[in-house]
C-alpha cells in the first residue's frame, strides 16, 4: 500500500536537498573536476556520435549501392574456378580434385574441406582457397618440382612411376612433360613407407637434390649420362652412388662439397679418354684421393666373351692412380 493510499504526510529527507552548486561557489579544484568531467562527457558523446554516424552512413551506402554488399551477402552458385599455380597442374585437375556439385553455392562451400582435398595430391605443396564474390572460387597453389623419379609397386598392383621432390615427397606427377620426366634419374635403394593414405617422405632427398642441381648446373653433359641414383649407403656411409648409362659407378660423399667432387670427376673423365680402358668406378667420397677402376674395352664381335659373361660383369683390370699423389699399390679392385 502506498503512502498516498494511506493518506500519510510526505516527509522530506536530506536526499531532497538539491546538490547542484554553481561553479562560482566551487573551489578551483572543484571547477577543474567539473571541466574535466564535462570534457570527458563531451568526448564520450562525440565518440558515440561518430559511431552512430558511421553506422548510419554504412547503412545508407548499402541501401543505395545494391552492387556492393547485397550481392556478397546473398552469394551465387560457383560459376567459375580460377587456378593460380607456379607449376603444371591445370583447371581440369582442379575440377576433378574439388569435385564440386553443379549447384554448389559459393557461401555454402566448406573451404577447409576443399583445401584438404587439394592438399591430398602430394604434388601440391601449399594451397589457399579464396571466395571471390559473387561466384568465383580462386585456388592458389604452390607445386613441388621433381628432382628424380622412382618405380613403386604396392601389393599386387602394377609398378608405377612416381616423381620425387627435393623434400622427399613422392607424387604421381600429373601434367609434366614426358620428355622432361625422361631426363630425370631414377632413385633406388630406398624403401617406401606408407603413412596414412600417402607415402612418407624419403629421407636424404635434399642431399640428392643438391647433387643433381650442382651437376645439372656445372656439368650438364655428365648429368645427362646419370641414370640411377642409389641412396642405399647414404644413411650408413654418407655416400651416394650414381650409375651412368655407360655402366660407370660414381660414388659421391654426401658430406663433401659437390662442386669440388664434380670438378674432379670431370677432370678424371677428360684425363681417362683411352677408349680401350674405360672407367668403371670412381670414388669421390674420399677427398683428394680418388680411387678409380678401369675396365676393359668393349669387346668386338670377334672377341666376345662367353654368353654368360656380360660387359658389366667383366673383371676389371688393375687399379691405377688418377692423380700423381696416388700410390699404385694402395688401391685394389673393389
Amino acid at each position, binding site marked *: *500500500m502506498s503512502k498516498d493510499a*494511506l493518506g500519510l*504526510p510526505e*516527509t*522530506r529527507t536530506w536526499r531532497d536537498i538539491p*546538490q*547542484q552548486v554553481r561553479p562560482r561557489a*566551487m573551489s578551483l*579544484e572543484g571547477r577543474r*573536476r567539473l571541466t574535466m568531467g564535462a570534457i570527458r562527457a563531451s568526448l564520450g558523446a562525440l565518440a558515440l556520435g561518430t559511431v552512430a554516424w558511421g553506422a548510419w552512413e554504412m547503412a545508407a551506402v548499402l541501401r543505395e549501392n545494391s552492387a556492393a554488399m547485397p550481392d556478397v551477402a546473398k552469394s551465387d552458385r560457383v560459376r567459375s574456378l580460377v587456378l593460380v599455380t607456379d607449376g603444371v597442374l591445370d583447371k581440369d585437375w582442379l575440377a576433378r580434385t574439388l569435385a564440386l556439385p553443379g549447384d554448389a553455392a559459393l557461401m555454402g562451400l566448406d573451404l577447409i574441406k576443399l583445401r584438404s582435398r587439394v592438399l591430398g595430391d602430394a604434388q601440391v605443396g601449399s594451397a589457399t582457397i579464396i571466395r571471390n564474390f559473387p561466384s568465383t572460387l580462386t585456388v592458389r597453389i604452390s607445386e613441388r618440382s621433381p628432382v628424380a623419379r622412382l618405380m613403386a609397386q604396392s601389393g599386387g598392383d602394377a609398378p608405377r612411376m612416381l616423381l620425387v621432390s627435393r623434400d622427399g615427397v613422392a607424387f604421381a606427377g600429373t601434367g609434366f612433360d614426358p620428355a622432361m620426366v625422361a631426363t630425370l634419374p631414377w632413385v633406388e635403394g630406398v624403401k617406401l613407407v606408407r603413412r596414412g593414405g600417402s607415402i612418407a617422405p624419403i629421407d636424404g632427398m635434399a642431399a640428392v637434390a643438391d647433387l643433381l642441381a650442382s651437376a645439372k648446373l656445372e656439368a650438364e653433359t655428365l648429368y645427362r649420362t646419370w641414370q640411377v641414383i642409389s641412396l642405399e649407403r647414404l644413411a650408413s656411409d654418407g655416400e651416394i652412388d650414381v650409375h651412368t648409362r655407360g655402366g660407370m659407378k660414381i660414388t659421391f660423399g654426401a658430406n663433401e662439397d659437390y662442386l669440388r667432387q664434380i670438378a674432379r670427376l670431370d677432370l678424371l673423365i677428360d684425363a681417362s679418354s683411352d677408349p680401350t680402358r674405360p672407367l668403371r668406378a670412381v670414388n669421390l667420397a674420399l677427398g683428394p684421393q680418388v680411387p678409380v677402376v678401369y675396365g676393359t674395352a668393349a669387346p668386338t664381335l670377334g672377341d666376345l666373351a662367353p654368353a654368360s659373361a656380360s660387359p658389366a660383369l667383366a673383371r676389371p683390370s688393375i687399379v691405377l692412380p688418377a692423380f700423381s699423389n696416388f700410390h699404385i699399390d694402395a688401391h685394389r679392385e673393389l
Partner: protein
Amino acid sequence: MSFKTAYIGAVEIGTAKIAALVGEYTGREIVIIGCGECPSRGVIKGSVVDYRAATECTQTALELAERDANERIDQVFLAQTGGHLEGFYNEASLNVKAADNMIEKDDIRTVCELAKAKDLPLGRMVVHNIRRPFRVDGRLVPTSPENLVGQKLEVGYWTVHGQEQRLADNIHVIRGFNLEVSELVLSSLASGHMVTSLEERQNGVLAIDIGAGTTDYVLYRNGVPHTTGVLAVGGGHFTNDISIGLRLTEAQAEKLKLRFGRAVVQARDRNEKVWLDGNFSIGDRQFPRQAIESITAARAWELLEVVKKKLGHAFAPETCAGGVVLTGGAAKLPALSVCAAKVFGTQARLGEAPSWVNENLRDPGFHTALGILYYGVSAQGDRAAAARGRGGFLHNVTRLFAPT
C-alpha cells in the same frame, strides 16, 4: 554479479579537524587505501559558519586523501553532527489483514510507512529513520516478521531530523569539490558502529563520541540504535573553562588541558603547582594542579550528566550490559572512563577500533570517519536490497561488515 570498483570518500567535518578517508569498495569488501587530515576552520559546534574556510579545509583533507590513495574519489559519505539534530520516537501498529493471520510483505510495508509518517516542523528534514525491532502480538521479532502468524503487528522508528540549511551547508561544502554526497551518516552511529561489538549492541551499550565542539551519543538495544542525540558541548568547552578560570588564552588553556587535565580529581595537595610551559620563558608561570583537574573534572561530570539526563528512562544500567564506551578526541582525557562509570553506574571503557584497523587510524579521532565508511556501505546495501524486494546477496554483503 559484476561490480565496478568504487572509491568512496568518508568525510567528517569536525570542529577541531576535518578527517577524510578513501575506501576501495569492490562489492564484497571495503579497504581503506588513503587518509587525509586538516585542521578545521569555519566550523563551530559541528556546523559550517564560514563556507569558504570550511570548503578550503575540507578540500585540503580530500586532496591529501586522494593523493595518499592515488585514486580519484567517486562519491562521498559525509558525517553529520551538530546541535540542530534532534530525534523522536514514533510507532505504529496494524491488524494483520490475512484471514489466517499470516503476516505478508504488504502488512510490513504498511506498518513501516505508518510508523515513519510524521509531520516535521517547517525547515526540518529527516536524516535517519532507525527502525526498532518488530513486535507481533507483543512478541519481539528482531528480523523480518514475514510469514509469522499474529493478529497485531507493531514497529517503531527513531527518527533523527535536522535543520535544512545546516544540512545543505555541509553537503554544499562537498559539492564545492564537484563530488556527490551519496550517504549522510549520523556521527554517533558511525563511531558507535566502530567501537562497539555486535554482542555489546545486542546486550545494550551506550557509545559517547566526545569531539571538540559536540558530543554525539547512541544507545543500542537489541542490536539496533535505540536512541541517539547530540549535545553542542565538547572538548573545546573544557579548554574554554580553563581559559576563563585561569585567565589564559585558548592556546595556553588547551596546552594545560592536554598535559594536566583529568576527568577525576587526583591531586590532593592544593599547593602542588605546574608550569604553563616549563621552560622559564617570559610569561611562563605556575598554576595549581588541583585547580586544573577540578575544572576539567567538573565539566566532564556535567557533560556526562547531561547525556544521562537526555537519555532519561531509555538508559538504565540493567538494560545496558555492555556499559559505556567513550570515543572521540576529547575522550582521551585521563580518567574519563572512571568518571563515566560513576555517572552512569555501570562499567565504562575507552573505545578502540577493531584489531584489523591500521595502526595510524586507531586514534579515536578517526573512529567516526572509519565508521562512516562501514556504516554507509551497510546502509547502501540495505537500501539496495530493500529496493529489489529481497534480502539476498546485498543483504549478505552488508552482514560482512558487522564487526564480531
